């Protein structure tokens, strides 16, 4: 393996999120697979990403895009075999790309053998592996997550004539983590993959592991204890691994998942994400500043994971009602774009295909504190299809070229797991990897350059952040520092040219060097530093004292 021995690798990573099904189909069955993904590792290495986060590829009835798992230690036949996965994993490691896989702890598919056994009778040994109740009145007041489809967190099982608890879809019964057997079974699952060599787990829906009466059944101390136990075991036997929490909570609630550095290594900063979109639309940095000022410090070895879009809807749970209404009115005017308190659109359509805005958002993503996650396809500005139901609109096949099925698969188009985007603006003929590779100033090449620049300076991944407070609220400016390295980032959030005076007296005498062109800017003096920026323009300056 070419991987570095680095137990903090996740801090410096640029993560690329994809579903194997969407990426590349090697056997013309219309569905992406691991051999196909292995073939495309070169592209990913070229892009400059250092880790892949794979969405669930386990056997599953696929009623929730694979998050309803029917077998934890296998690979869905459509995507290949376990051996195919191993091949892929080794190939990725050879290219210095680590692999993070999903671990859905909270629930299984109702097709999982465990549940089949559990529901078969009340006396079954695995009965207690799930949460059963005679009534559906327990745990009152716990909110429903998939509000558009579910009416209750309890579902009636006609076989064993009891209710079972499910925080998500009704076909995803929750495992009972009060049962040590369940905890042990899941540890065995994790061990299976860790032994194979995966570098980390994204633990899905982790706040919901444990239920207690009179609570929201989220973020309970028992949940933390379970995770800490897993972490301890991983640390003992498997060095350089990483646990990533999916906890859609306020920062003050999420930090509990870091523990004292003995729980999760990373957690998503959910509330920041919609505020980045809001700030660009409002042309006002306030939403970003507000949320980051409220974000408490985390243990030294931990890291926030930040992102623009992902496979789910752009969640608007962690915003106020006023903010939600604003986001809907500005980014999801068509009701078909809305689902479950969120917006099911990709980055490029939300930015109205405005190249400058797309660049600005990516610039923010890659310069703010945290490990960035790039959602597959966003590096070429892929579009979405809001009419595909659920959140499938943002999970369409990767667009490789302008040819058959966008180069994704040789199968009949009708056989594809999902239609390829084909409209004149975002369709595969207009937006694809091959054309962008050939075009020097394409978004793809720009992204490569951006990632490359970021990777050169550890200050972005590990440095501190200090926000400047210029009186022009349309400019978001901050200073990142790590040791002797100082980087000044200035972002124009507005659609018009701006002038801004920055108070950089502390850095008096430094020379700003613009990091992409490497040109020198005037030395910082006593007076406020005047900069002018074009619409949505941003600068990364290295401040050197010479």
């Amino acid at each position, binding site marked *: 393996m070419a991987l570095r021995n680095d137990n903090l690798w996740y801090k410096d990573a640029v993560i690329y999120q994809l579903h194997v099904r969407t990426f590349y189909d090697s056997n013309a069955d219309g569905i992406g697979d691991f051999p196909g993904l292995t073939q495309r590792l070169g592209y990913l290495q070229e892009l400059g990403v250092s880790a892949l986060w794979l969405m669930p590829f386990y056997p599953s009835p696929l009623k929730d895009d694979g998050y309803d798992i029917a077998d934890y230690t296998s690979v869905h036949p459509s995507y290949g075999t376990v051996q195919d996965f191993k091949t892929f994993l080794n190939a990725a490691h050879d290219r210095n790309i680590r692999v993070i896989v999903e671990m859905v702890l909270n629930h299984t598919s109702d097709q999982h053998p465990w549940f089949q056994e559990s529901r078969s009778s009340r006396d079954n040994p695995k009965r207690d592996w799930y949460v059963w109740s005679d009534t559906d009145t327990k745990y009152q007041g716990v909110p429903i997550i998939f509000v558009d489809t579910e009416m209750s967190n309890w579902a009636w099982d006609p076989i064993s004539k009891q209710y079972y608890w499910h925080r998500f879809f009704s076909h995803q019964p929750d495992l009972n983590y009060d049962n040590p057997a369940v905890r042990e079974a899941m540890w065995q699952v994790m061990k299976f993959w860790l032994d194979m060599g995966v570098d980390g787990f994204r633990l899905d829906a982790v706040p919901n592991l444990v239920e207690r009466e009179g609570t929201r059944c989220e973020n309970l101390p028992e949940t933390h204890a379970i995770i800490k136990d897993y972490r301890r075991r991983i640390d003992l036997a498997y060095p350089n691994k990483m646990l990533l929490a999916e906890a859609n909570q*306020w920062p*003050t609630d999420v930090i509990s998942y870091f523990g004292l550095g003995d729980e999760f290594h990373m957690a998503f900063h959910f509330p920041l994400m919609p505020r980045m979109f*809001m700030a660009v639309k*409002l042309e*006002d*940095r*306030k*939403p970003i500043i*507000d*949320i980051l000022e*409220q974000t408490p410090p985390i243990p030294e070895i931990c890291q926030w994971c930040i992102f623009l879009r992902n496979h789910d809807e752009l969640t608007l749970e*962690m*915003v*106020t009602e*006023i*903010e939600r209404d*604003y986001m809907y009115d500005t980014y999801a005017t068509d009701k078909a774009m809305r689902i479950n308190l969120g917006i099911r659109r990709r980055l490029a359509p939300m930015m109205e295909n405005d190249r400058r805005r797309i660049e600005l958002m990516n610039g923010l993503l890659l310069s703010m504190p945290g490990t960035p996650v790039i959602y597959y396809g966003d590096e070429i500005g892929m579009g979405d299809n809001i009419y595909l139901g659920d959140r499938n609109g943002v999970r369409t096949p990767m667009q490789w070229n302008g040819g058959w099925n966008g180069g994704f698969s040789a199968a009949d188009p009708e056989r594809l797991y999902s239609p390829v985007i084909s409209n004149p603006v975002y369709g595969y003929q207009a937006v694809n990897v091959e054309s962008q590779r050939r075009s020097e100033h394409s978004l793809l090449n720009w992204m490569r350059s951006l990632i490359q620049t970021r990777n050169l300076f550890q200050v972005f991944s590990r440095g501190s952040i200090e926000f400047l407070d*210029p*009186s*022009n*609220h*349309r400019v978001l400016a901050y200073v990142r520092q790590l040791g002797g390295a100082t980087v000044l980032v200035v972002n124009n959030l*507005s659609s*018009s040219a*701006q*002038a*801004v*005076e920055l108070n950089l007296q502390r850095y008096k005498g430094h020379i700003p060097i613009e990091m992409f062109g490497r040109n020198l800017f005037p030395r910082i003096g006593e007076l406020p530093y005047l900069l002018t920026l074009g619409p949505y323009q941003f600068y990364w300056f290295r401040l050197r004292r010479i």
Partner: protein
Amino acid sequence: MFLAFSSRAGEQAGNLAEDILLGDDFIRQLMSVGEVDLLIGIPSYNSAITIAQTVRAIEESVHQNFVRDRIVIVNVDGGSTDNTTEVFLESDRRKAFDRRGLTSLRTIHRVSWQYGKTPSLGMAVRTIVAAADLLRARSCAVVSSTTIDLTASWVTNLLRPVHKEKFEYVSPLYARNRYEGLLSRNLLYPMVRAIFGLRMREVYSGEWAFSGRLAAHYLDQDVWAEEPVRARPEGWLAITAMCSGYACCQSFLGQKGAPTVGGVDTVEAIRQTVGNLFWCMERYQEHWLDRVGSQPVPTFGPEHEILNNGAPSNPEKIFELFRTGVAELEPVLASILTQETHRQLNGIASEDAEKFRFGCELLVRALYEFAASYHHAVINRDHIVQALVPLYRGRLYSYLLQHAHSSVEEMQADSELLCLEFERQKPYLIEKWNAKS
């Protein structure tokens, strides 16, 4: 005072900005703000005690009703010595996070500037208008920094007609105590109504809202250096809107009491308001000379309300001042009033205090003669206005006596009669106005 402006797309803009009216520091602050949808101006002078509450009311209104709009609150200060501007900039800055830990959607800017070393409302308003022009504000309001009754709903009620409906000038309406605002009720409102033909009650009060187009129109006028406008710009602003065909309306704000800080005394109030009114009559004579009757103005919320509380202190003193005034100012009044009117005035001045009545007919005739004398400048114009004070006191005393036990309805009916008398005698005013001096 609330003035709502919005600025045009800048073609004729720059009249004020080019006068180097706005200092560099102010321009720099405005630069940072950028284009806004709403600009709210607060003129101030030594209002540190009350300005924090004003700002709070504005921000609360914004959070509730104009949450997506780009807002700036501009404080223009006339050389305060009690840290008014510091209080304005810093009050409630510590973020009051709500349950989710968040505040408003957008940055609400606060900008402050000292326009001079002595307070001048005209200069303050002009600065606000210029700022609105530079920032291309769609609507603007000017609020008094000393109105302690100002609440968030006041701000909302004032701004909504101009910002969300299609009106271009919004005048406030209040619920007043029965013995307050009597200059407005007995002189200013009836006279404005009769002369300019619009039933706008509070032309000389503390709060207004303007539309954008109107602001640009104001900026084009070359009157800001005139003393009546420097002292009391709001009257000229309202009358200009009325005479220039802009859609005017009134909006009920709430109950208004007396200001705790810096209330104006009667003499000064009359000098400024009546002086301004006469000056406006002079300036806009072609608009009102052939206008007959009056039209109601669209109103949001209840009409002007009179509350049944409060009692005046020392009304006898007021009568004494009237009587002495008429006697001592004999030569001055003789050069302003006609012989007949003067004789009648002397007549009522010799009546007993208990039976005193200053009838509508005589009052209106006298006021119109004052207006005509002002027009012909029979003596110094400011002196003419000052000579009006005893007459106002006489009317005030008569009104207090007459309505000591009246119901609110009776008071309102009497006010309406006075208004009709003003309208009825307008031809007399026109006759005196046009007479050769």
